[in-house]
């Protein structure tokens, strides 16, 4: 009996996020075989309208075997909707599954059955997304059509503009909240298809040897296992490629920002995986190919203002992640600080927190708003009159005519950070808003890797500017 195999060139193309159709076929065969083995393990000898390629079959069988559910295979498949789009003679057709009881096994809460108007919205978004993909991202469109077979509409998350997920047990299926617009749908589908590809790859090949290790991922606020970190890098490789093309096509500052932000995040994540994690030989080859794909993009020129904002956004996430998840040895730090000794080497421990957390940042919203206005981050007016960018209400127009000093201070520090004026961040620091001001000070001081140490000393009553100076040395 034949073992699954990929040539080295096919394997590296897969790692680079550019698998050929026959590689996707091989992965799909692996998933069909997996579903068959799952049914065999369940001692199922008959299954209604058996379709081994059905992602919800895999989700159901795996859930049964893990004893997460006890209900049997559905007696019959409900009638489901299909979404179909065609552009330039290239077709995508997927099941929009809003009725099958197994659709709740993909990890997010499924929506109730859609109304016709809601289904029409999905169809319009997919048609427009497909036109965009075929027109400007044709290789990615072909891969998406090869991988994606099922979309399960899910409830929105109040804390996220859009949410979607892919189950390792359901190759080709995506659980996704109502798309806001065609571009959002296009990039989310590309993202999720990468998860399916990597899940199918990891089924055939061990990629790492430390399933328990957890660490930093630029895409989540919680510590992630190695597999999750690799998933993030692989999914965002496709996202980065999408925004690279969009940036070149239209010069949209937001597209350029996304490209700059994610190229750096994907590259540094792949480098960190290769340098610090025990990957298997296949894992090193796969991750190396991923890095080789994104690395040349780092040298591509982009507006320096947008490059800076992208770096601030990435630094902001890293600092927030450390503040949320890392705890230092405060006593050793405090002793050295009070004595005036140099900062001691401190090993922070990871706080165990398995709650899933998506990334939220008021600073990121600020950057997005800036780029939407397409205004240069020239803060000279704002720095001379910090209320310049405030709304009338924020300027106190509706109250007693006085300014809100807290907001003005935040605005000064924030605007300076986004303008790359690190001196003003330091001089204007008041400490009244620890969330924005302290993270700004840490980023401007270049001490993000010791963010939790700064925060611990500040929480113990130390002056934040002096602490940052002490750490910088």
């Amino acid at each position, binding site marked *: *009996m*034949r*073992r*699954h*195999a*990929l*040539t*080295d060139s096919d*394997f590296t193309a897969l790692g680079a996020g550019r698998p050929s159709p026959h590689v996707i076929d091989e992965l799909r*065969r*692996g998933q069909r*075989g*997996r579903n*068959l*083995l*799952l*049914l*065999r*393990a369940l001692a*199922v*000898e*008959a299954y209604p309208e*058996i379709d081994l390629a059905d992602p919800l079959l895999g989700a159901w069988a*795996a859930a049964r075997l*893990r004893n997460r559910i006890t209900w049997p295979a559905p007696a019959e498949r409900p009638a489901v909707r299909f979404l179909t789009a065609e552009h330039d003679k290239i077709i995508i057709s997927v099941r929009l599954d809003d009725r099958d009881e197994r659709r709740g096994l*993909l*990890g997010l809460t499924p929506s109730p059955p859609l109304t016709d108007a809601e289904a029409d919205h999905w169809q319009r978004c997919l048609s427009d997304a497909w036109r965009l993909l075929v027109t400007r991202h044709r290789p990615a469109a072909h891969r998406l059509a090869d991988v994606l077979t099922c979309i399960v509409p899910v409830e929105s998350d109040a804390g*996220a*503009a*859009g*949410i*979607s*997920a*892919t*189950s*390792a*047990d359901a190759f080709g299926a995506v659980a996704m909240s109502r798309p*806001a617009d065609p*571009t*959002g749908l296009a990039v*989310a589908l590309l993202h*999720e298809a990468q998860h399916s590809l990597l899940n199918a790859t*990891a089924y*055939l*090949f061990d990629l790492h040897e430390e*399933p328990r290790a957890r660490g930093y991922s630029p*895409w*989540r606020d919680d510590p*992630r296992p190695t597999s*999750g970190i690799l*998933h993030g890098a692989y*999914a965002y490789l496709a996202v980065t490629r999408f925004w690279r093309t969009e940036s070149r096509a239209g010069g949209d500052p*937001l597209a350029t920002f996304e490209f700059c932000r994610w190229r750096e995040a994907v590259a540094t994540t792949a480098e960190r995986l290769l340098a610090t994690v025990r990957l298997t*030989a*296949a894992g*090193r*080859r796969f991750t*190396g190919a991923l890095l080789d794909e994104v690395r040349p993009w780092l040298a591509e020129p982009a507006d320096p203002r947008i490059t800076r904002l992208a770096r601030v956004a990435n630094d902001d996430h890293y600092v927030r992640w450390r503040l949320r998840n890392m705890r230092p040895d405060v006593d050793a730090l405090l002793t050295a600080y009070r004595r005036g000794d140099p900062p001691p080497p401190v090993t922070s421990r990871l706080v165990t927190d398995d709650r*899933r957390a*998506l990334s939220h940042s008021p600073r990121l919203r600020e950057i997005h708003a800036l780029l939407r206005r397409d205004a240069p981050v020239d803060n000279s007016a704002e720095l001379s009159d910090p209320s310049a960018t405030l709304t009338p209400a924020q300027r106190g127009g509706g109250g007693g005519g006085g300014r809100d000093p807290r907001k003005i201070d935040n605005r000064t520090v924030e605007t300076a950070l986004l303008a790359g004026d690190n001196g003003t961040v330091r001089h204007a620091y008041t400490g009244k808003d620890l969330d924005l001001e302290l993270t700004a000070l840490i980023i401007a001081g270049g001490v993000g890797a010791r963010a939790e140490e700064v925060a611990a000393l500040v929480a113990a009553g130390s002056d934040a500017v002096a602490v940052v100076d002490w750490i910088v040395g």
Partner: protein
Amino acid sequence: MTDQEHIAEWRSEMVDVSGLTLTELTQLTKGDESVLSRSLRRLADDLSDPDEPIAGFNSAL
């Protein structure tokens, strides 16, 4: 295995059973479980200790 080794082909532990029917697979495993033992063992490991099955995405723009 080192990175320096030239690897012409990456071979999986998993055998390709995708062309079989459920009945054929059942007959095969009844006759000789060892044919598929590695695949079944790996699948069992996969199920008992799955890597995070869900990946999320916040498409906030």
